[in-house]
């Protein structure tokens, strides 16, 4: 069963993250590297990526003439994807356990960030949606 673990953050969260000390950032990145390595060692790693800053995000809609219409304005309350992990595990419980570990990644001053991690199973086919 493949699951995606998503770390989402509002603009305020991103702005706060930008103010972390170099030491805090290094500690967090070191944790993430070890975490990815552990997933690989267990054979459950599929992929991980971090995303660029939300101020560079664009919302695209189809225009009438086939040209994309882009918009760069988002509500303050919108949650932006900050990064994700895709894992291949035996049960949802295993996905939740792994998500809890990411949630506990060190934040400011080395204290656990306790960032909420959204856990979703990825589709194998549309039968998964019951349609």
């Amino acid at each position: 069963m493949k699951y995606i673990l998503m770390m989402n953050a509002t603009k305020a969260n991103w702005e706060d993250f930008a103010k972390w000390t170099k030491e805090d950032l290094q500690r967090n990145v070191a944790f993430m590297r070890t975490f990815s390595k552990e997933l690989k060692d267990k054979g459950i790693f599929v992929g991980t990526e971090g995303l660029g800053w939300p101020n560079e995000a664009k919302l695209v809609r189809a225009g009438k003439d086939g040209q994309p219409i882009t918009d760069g304005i988002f509500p303050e309350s919108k949650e932006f994807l900050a990064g994700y992990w895709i894992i291949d595990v035996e049960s949802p419980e295993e996905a939740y356990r792994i998500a809890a570990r990411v949630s506990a990644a060190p934040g400011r001053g080395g204290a656990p960030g306790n960032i909420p991690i959204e856990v979703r199973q990825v589709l194998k086919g549309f039968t998964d949606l019951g349609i």
Partner: protein
Amino acid sequence: MKYILLMSGSKAGVDSYLAWTPQDRDAHMAILHKINRELTESGEFIATQGLTGPSEAKLVRGEKNGLPVTDGVFPEAKEFLLGFWIVDVATPERAYAIAGKISAAPGPNGAPTNMPIEVRQFASYSK
């Protein structure tokens, strides 16, 4: 430049999608498959994935007594990721053009869905 194109929707949006006729759904999927084939042929395709419905989503925070703390309650207004495409393109404009095609995929009765597609570049620090 690697970009991720994110298609998101609220619970209400997912419910209305589930009520589409099979014909509308097939027509929509046919265009999405065609876009995937075109991206594969142009060498820009990296990956695509759909997600299961938001009713199964869980929010996990930390641990208590060694167990993950899970929550399945979400505000009605929350946008859930429905699916994504990862593309490797020469310019941001090309990423927007691909997102435009996805947004133009047909919905009920063949009219374009005009779903907003969020376009984000991957961070270079991710590896």
